């Protein structure tokens, strides 16, 4: 049960972030859109984008699965799962989003993953 929840959390977090990144790369937000008078229009626009709605659904799945995991496992086990998604998402960003992940960025992502895992010990 514990590992099923871990799979759901990592899978849904990865899918949510990939969908968000994919959609937001296609629709760059302009600085003018962030002004208080235009935020409402920006939000309405975002709410109509299918991939973003799907991303929010995956975020909700991840959140509820994390709550469930916390009820059956230690926090020190549950938190490093987040670190696993950083490395997996970097790999998928390279493969699916065609981002140029140079050795420096790989090293950075690996350091962050190790660091988050250590914080949870």
């Amino acid at each position, binding site marked *: 049960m514990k590992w099923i929840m871990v799979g759901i959390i990592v899978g849904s977090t990865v899918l949510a972030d990939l969908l968000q990144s994919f959609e937001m*790369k296609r629709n*760059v937000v302009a600085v003018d859109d962030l002004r208080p008078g235009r935020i409402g229009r920006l939000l309405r626009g975002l709410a109509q984008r299918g991939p973003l709605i799907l991303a929010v659904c995956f975020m909700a799945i991840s959140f509820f699965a994390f709550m469930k995991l916390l009820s059956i496992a230690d926090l020190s086990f549950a938190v490093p799962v987040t670190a696993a998604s950083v490395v997996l998402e970097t790999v998928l960003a390279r493969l699916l989003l*065609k981002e140029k992940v140079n050795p420096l960025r790989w090293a*950075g992502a690996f350091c962050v993953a190790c660091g988050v895992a250590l914080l949870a010990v």
Partner: protein
Amino acid sequence: MAAGRVVAERPETGFGPKRLDFKTKLLTAVVVLANVLGNFSLSWGMKHQAAKLADSPLAYIQTIFSPWVLLGTTLLILWFLARMTLLSWADLSYVLPVTSIGYVFTAFLGKYFFAEQITWQRWLGTLAIMLGMILVGLTTPNTTAEVREHGR
């Protein structure tokens, strides 16, 4: 100067390469602070409402509208919007490691406000995250605009 050409290809953001880089870093700071302070406010609010929650289901609704929980929720909405904007300006493989500095700030807030213990493993983890953040911060935030340019 591939990076300059890449950024210049994105006139809809309304600023040039150097300003785009500055704005990306500024927005990264907003994303991190909104997330850390939002989680802290939620945690602070929930810790002070924990006794009430056991009383009745109505207490849950009251908790949502308590000042700290409301502030936390507002900050997390701001975090979500800022993060989406940041993802439109920078790579996912850049945003993820760079915003992980939030884990470090959360650890410090936990130590000073909730009297949590910081072990040597946590200090080592903090150093690893900061090193990772510095390494990723040295790379170009957005590498995919060039791919789209070649794809046209």
